[in-house]
């Protein structure tokens, strides 16, 4: 690649050395042929004419300190020579990755920032080999990963766990929500076909108007309940965070449900996941309109149910969890748009 590219460069640029500035500010001279093996450096030289003198040294990304640069350049120096056999290259690669694990991670990061894909693949394969077959404790040890999952840790997603009544209750509530959302969807689709069959929409509207003149899309009290719950959540932050947490739990635990509900869960929840992971088009909560129309008795019942549920959840989580939950408070509005399946989900 470097030969073709250098052909395009003006003669003044054909110096054998270019200047690179590493993350610690120090500037060094490197053979151009070798440095150009890295796509990022190549780009800088060709597109921006950088690197020809000390003053316009190419600023390398912050992951590249002098030690890392020298390792990456060693790799480039070996591989940019065209005459080597595959066997030679492979054996060099194997020797190259014999280094401390933390250095390996640093090199991976440096290579990635320089867009040097072959080196990234090599080092990440080496890291994968390190991780493979080891127990979690060993892995944490090697990479110094903090062990901050004491409660959730027990909920390993692949194992069967004893039936937790809270999980079942949560699943039931979610199932109800999903049903409501589904009905809403159907309704939406029906409205979209207005021109095709007006009669059905009119029927629906009159049905809706009969119950509640102000709501746009919902036609049952269940929908009100769901919207209500959302409002509730905005008031009661500990509830929603607990629900969010249980969503994680549920995600972890749903596997064990062999009942039809779970299978339905499996189908529907995954069906409606939008491509880029955002849930923009579902949010349809006209909060302002709803409240005034709900039957107060029903409202109370719902409030009680929800708070009871919240209390049951909260009572079993240790202090630390509460802290974690309260720290999520700021992310109110983005956190709790529900997707079609009714899962409260985070905008990561």
């Amino acid at each position, binding site marked *: 690649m470097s030969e073709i590219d250098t052909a395009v460069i003006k003669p003044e640029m054909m110096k054998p050395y270019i200047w690179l500035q590493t993350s610690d500010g120090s500037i060094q001279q490197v053979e151009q042929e070798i440095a150009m093996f890295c796509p990022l450096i190549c780009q800088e030289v060709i597109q921006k004419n950088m690197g020809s003198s000390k003053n316009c040294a190419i600023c390398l990304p912050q992951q590249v300190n002098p030690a890392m640069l020298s390792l990456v350049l060693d790799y480039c120096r070996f591989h940019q020579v065209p005459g080597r056999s595959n066997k030679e290259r492979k054996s060099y690669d194997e020797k190259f990755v014999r280094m401390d694990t933390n250095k390996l991670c640093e090199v991976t990061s440096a290579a990635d920032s320089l867009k040097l894909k072959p080196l990234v693949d090599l080092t990440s394969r080496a890291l994968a080999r390190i991780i493979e077959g080891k127990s979690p404790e060993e892995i944490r040890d090697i990479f110094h*990963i*903090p062990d*901050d999952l004491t409660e959730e840790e027990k909920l390993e997603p692949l194992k069967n766990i004893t039936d937790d009544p809270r999980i079942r209750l949560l699943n039931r509530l979610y199932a109800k929500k999903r049903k409501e959302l589904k009905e809403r969807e159907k309704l939406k689709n029906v409205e979209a076909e207005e021109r095709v069959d007006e009669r059905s929409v009119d029927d629906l509207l009159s049905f809706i108007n009969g119950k509640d003149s102000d709501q746009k899309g919902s036609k049952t009290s269940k929908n009100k309940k769901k919207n209500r719950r959302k409002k509730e959540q905005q008031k009661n932050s500990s509830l929603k965070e607990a629900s969010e947490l249980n969503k994680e739990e549920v995600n972890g635990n*749903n596997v064990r449900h062999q009942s039809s509900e779970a299978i339905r869960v499996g189908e529907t929840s*995954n069906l409606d*996941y939008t491509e880029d992971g955002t849930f923009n088009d579902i949010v349809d909560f006209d909060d302002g309109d709803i409240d005034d129309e709900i039957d107060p008795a029903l409202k109370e019942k719902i409030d009680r149910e929800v708070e009871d549920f919240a209390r049951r959840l909260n009572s079993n989580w240790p202090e630390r969890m509460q802290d974690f939950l309260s720290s999520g408070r700021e992310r109110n509005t983005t956190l709790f748009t529900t997707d079609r399946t009714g899962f409260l989900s985070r905008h990561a």
Partner: protein
Amino acid sequence: MGDVLGPDFISDLPQSIIESILTQLPIRDAVRTSILSSKWRYKWASMTHLVFDEKCVPLCNDRDGVDKSIVKFITSVLFLHQGPIHKFRITNSYLQSCPEIDQWILFLSRNDIKELVLELEEGEFFRIPSCLFNCKKLTRLELFRCELEPPLTFKGFMCLKSLNLHQVLISPDAIDSIISSCPLLESLSLSYFDSLALTIRAPNLKYLNLEGEFKDICLEDTPLLVELSVAMYMTDDIAEHFEQSSNCNFFKFLGGVPNLEKLVGHIYFTKYLSIGNPGNLPIIYNNLESIELYQVGFEDMNEMLVVLRLITSSPNLKELQISQGSSNMSSATDAPNMDFWAKKCPSDSTLGHLKVVKLTDMCGVPQEMEFIKFLLGCSPVLEIMSIAPCVHDMENEMRMLIELVKFRRASTKAEIVFTRE
């Protein structure tokens, strides 16, 4: 501790690196990383490559139990997964056809699946649900032991580059239409089809591999074909069909592939090509550098003609490998046409680039020796000719060697290597 990345030096690496690491782990280990720490909880869930191979669940003696646990495992992985899935591959010999697979394919069809490989080993063939045909972004499809029936409204996989069907039940019209409706198709492999009559129209096709009982194959529109590998099995029906056929198979098959670089033929391929009269249309394969033909019947003049034609139409041929395959050579020696090669071959033909020749299963009959003589005499840059006899028979081998030594060699560098088992 106290590196550039902080005390924990792996969890903060960019997601693309983590993905690269996780996809190089067996899937079970990758999913297990979820309990490393809170940051790692869902790193695995956005992997875009999911490969379920033999090791994805621990084995035990109960075959049914293993099957169930595989199904559970895959279902739960898919359920917990977030984000697009580009590559999905199941190659597990314990997994039998079951209704859950339908659901998985449905799920994948809604998650931008690009590469799908389904190798189900045991039991009855799995009927592929129609949602597979909604996977608009599919670039690679490999199916083993399935039943495939494209819906009437199927317009084709617009992005499909590689198609590999192995023991797949599908109607001939359907397979024709699938192939011709995938405009970007570059690599096609069809194995173990029964009595298939195929017309292949694939303007971008580069690699073709066919294996099975084919009644009739016509490469109608494959101008870019680079590599062709055919293993043709024969049944009595097909043999009869051949006798009665008036087509010129050579032309139908190799008439439209001027860019061919490598040709491999097994079993009855040369016999198939020998049927019909190719006429005198000169087709030159300028790029054909490697020819491998197995089970060639040397006693059949027509097959020899095919071989001759191939060799002389390939001016840049570098490697030739021929394996003899007649069942009984002894009965074939009635009045051999000794001047066959001298007559049929243009006198000034030289195989100007032929460097390596490998002949196996040679019996030493006159037809073979003539062929060797021809090759030696026409290859000025020949470097190695290796000959392996089919049966270890001292006398026969001695005879062959004595004859070989007499042959003129056009190349001063030619080495004849006689390998004995």
